[in-house]
């Protein structure tokens, strides 16, 4: 029996390199958020049109009211989760250089989380007036 070329186990060598009973996770989350995005986007457009003629005080009052704030929070969370997966698919399809792909995938996560949490911050500030 020849000596092994390295002492890392097969599991250690494949860890972090992709699907291990989680391959359909992104696919499924993409569909769930897509379904959620339809009514939430319609609601958000309705809210925005309602607020077009308002000044900041009026906009802040409506956006900070419980029902509107909860709808906008759901909207922001659902679209940012959805768009993060979508942009990941685009990057994985078109960027074949590993290092650049890695950098773009990290940047994609940062962008989605920053935009998402910044929006959530705005809505919570309007709701609680912190």
């Amino acid at each position, binding site marked *: 029996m020849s000596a092994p070329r390295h002492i890392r186990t097969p599991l250690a060598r494949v860890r972090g390199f992709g699907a291990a009973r989680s391959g359909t996770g992104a696919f499924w989350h993409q569909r769930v958020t897509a379904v959620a995005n339809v009514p939430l986007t319609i609601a958000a457009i309705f809210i925005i049109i309602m607020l077009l003629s308002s000044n*900041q005080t009026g906009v802040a009052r409506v956006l900070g009211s419980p029902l509107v704030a909860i709808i906008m929070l759901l909207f922001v969370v659902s679209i940012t989760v959805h768009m993060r997966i979508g942009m990941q698919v685009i990057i994985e399809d078109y960027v074949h250089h590993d290092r650049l792909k890695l950098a773009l995938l990290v940047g994609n996560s940062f962008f989605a989380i920053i935009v998402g949490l910044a929006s959530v911050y705005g809505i919570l500030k309007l709701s609680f007036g912190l």
Partner: protein
Amino acid sequence: MMAETGSLDGRARAERPLSPHLQIYRPMLTMMMSIVHRMTGAANYFGTILLAWWLNAAAGLGGYARFQAFAGSWIGRIILFGFTWSVIHHMLGGIRHLIWDFGRGFGPNEREWLAAANLVGSIAITIVLWVVGLLAMGGPQ
């Protein structure tokens, strides 16, 4: 596309044959709509910056007047009109994809009809939304 290197472990990548790509095919409506679905998705991705800006401007960060000045400017209006169409088009395209996910709408006539309805519907809905929006603001300015 071929011969791109740079794998993380430094090993050369095997040169494997690739499937035919876009340049092989004659443009078709369903194919163009698939491309546009991606492009509108990417546009909406960056459009969320405007959403975050609007929400935080309303919350008093950076001044609401600055956001209003942008949204009321002609370049702002063009961007927002494009953003509106992009969101609506991507939403209708998404509904089309959900229909396909259930295994329906793949027939030769169905898929053409769905693609055309997606395009016509997105333009019509965008125009209706902007007419309603401009009327809500007291007519076009």
